[in-house]
């Protein structure tokens, strides 16, 4: 692969460019995170396969701790989860640390194994097709 030479562009210092990039990234993140919430599970197409024991555990944990604020993964008191591109590690981080309005959930409430299952379940919710619209 040919790499472009490391040129210094006029007008912006390296630090300024980093700031601009960070700002753009944050802006995009904000747009995604705060976008209107998608509806929960579709009814006429496939839903999460809870014959998979891990997903079944994830569903149980979700209903115990998450559904109240994110019903079925859609928005409610909290943001929607089913249309956000967060990777699994970021979901774990948020669950354990509860940044912002969301409370934190420790390992007494959600064990490490349950958290693994929960992350898989939340990702599966995201991969469902969007809800039905009017015919």
């Amino acid at each position, binding site marked *: 692969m040919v790499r472009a030479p490391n040129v210094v562009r006029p007008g912006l210092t390296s630090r300024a460019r980093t700031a601009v990039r960070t700002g753009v990234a944050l802006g995009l993140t904000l747009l995604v995170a705060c976008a209107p919430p998608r509806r929960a599970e579709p*009814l006429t197409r496939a839903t999460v396969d809870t014959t998979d024991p891990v997903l079944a555990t994830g*569903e*149980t944990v979700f209903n115990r701790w998450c559904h109240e604020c994110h019903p079925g993964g859609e928005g*409610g*008191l909290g943001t929607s989860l089913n249309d956000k591109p967060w990777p699994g590690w970021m979901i774990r981080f948020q669950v354990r640390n509860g940044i*912002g309005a*969301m409370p934190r959930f420790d390992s007494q409430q959600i064990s490490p194994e349950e958290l693994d299952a929960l992350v898989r379940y939340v990702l599966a919710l995201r991969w469902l097709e969007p809800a039905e*619209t009017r015919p």
Partner: protein
Amino acid sequence: MGDSGPTRRPTPMASPVQPTPLRAAPPRAALALVTLALLVGAVVGGCYGLRQTMGGGQTTFTPPRQVDAADVAVPPGYRVEVVATGLTFPTGIAFDDRGRAYVTEAGYSYGEEWDVPRVVRLEPDGGRTVIVEGDNPPWNGVAYHGGALYIAEGGVLEGGRILRVGLDGQVRELVRDLPSLGDHHTNGPAIGTDGWIYFGQGSVTNSGVVGEDSHAFGWLERFPQVHDIPCQDVTLAGRNYTTPDPLADDTGARAVTGAFVPFGSSTEPGQVVPGQVPCSGAILRVPPEGGATELVAWGLRNPFGLAFAPDGRLYVTDNSYDERGSRPVWGTGDLLYAIEPGAWHGWPDYHGERPLTDADHFAAPGREPPGFVLAEHPNQPPAAIARLGVHSASTGFDFSPGPDFGHEGQAFVTQFGDMAPGVGKVLGPVGFKVVRVDVETGAVHDFAVNRAELNGPASWVGGAGLERPVAARFSPDGTALYVVDFGVMTVDLERPWPVRDTGVVWRISRTGAGGGP
């Protein structure tokens, strides 16, 4: 990892040479990841503060309401039909021995809209027959048993009652003077396998303390001495709340109010409030011929829906706390309980089995944690069977009786939908649908919801589907679920705005014969 692992700390006998740092500097990539996580977390978390509330009632509506069953999505194998339209504030449905449907029209709605409460029979030819009318609304629900209708009369003006109404319209009062003059009223009823009439009695307040929100509801000015009544003696923690006094002529006046006492009355630590029956925030029962009211369970907030499962156990939907008033409580979903007879179920100090002193969960952003108002608690409250959406207003429900409809033994729960911004802030409409609850696992799934990319009432998402489902009842033959839709209610910072003549009854049934999920 525990403390028993090998230590890497230098001992006092170590070389006087400055020890080498034990951990290498974290790689740049790891630092970047952590920074990104913190930033994204802050942004995600910050959404709550950045965004305006987006409740399903925060919309505009121009009559008439359009109704089209094709705009309601249900799982494969089910279909939706429209049974009746043009009802005003319908709240309940019951069937007689001939399978004819009776619907209560409340005669009152939040927003202080008044009308005549009544029961109408939906005739097979599409006509309607008025069976009985009342004058002490709202009529919050109806059940049929032994040739008569039993009505839960909310009674915001004269106190709640349970009425027995013959199909000829003859009325007999079974219970009167129930404590329904506040926020929540007399609900249900449901007929037990013992033939007794079970009903829910809502609490007077959001979380035990009469406040400015009580004035906004409209009742504090009518009944300034009204407050919650415990079912058994309770000992108070002496926690009091200072608020502006909306009853005073002086706009700068302040009032100090404690729990279980009238507005403007403070309490002391150790003060005992005597219990009595009937009380507020409880499940009560009365014999079908009338008589003394008995306590079934207490410590509930607004037990709106009652139904007996096929195994004979009583289940109740409890509308949980709002973020309003002197003692706002944040983030508490509505609960579906299998009632434990005699038990205190936690209101006003717990949400299910969790204490409200868990400030990380229950303190509204920027507000003081609610804390305990009781010095002692009668028992550790039982856990709920299922947890439903915060502010979903999960109301009436019924259990699928068998394979003809499918999902036998599971609960089909109507969700009236949020009343934001009055009850607190939401980032998207909550409720406005029918959900299916597996009472064995607590799993909650959508069952009937508007066809749209977003969730919400038809007046919010567009189309001609569901508005505010409030009650559900299976037909006597077990083949169809009837869903009562209260109709359009928009909400703004001033008050709710219910719209007359917009109530609907929907019918959901299987498209094919035999074999259910």
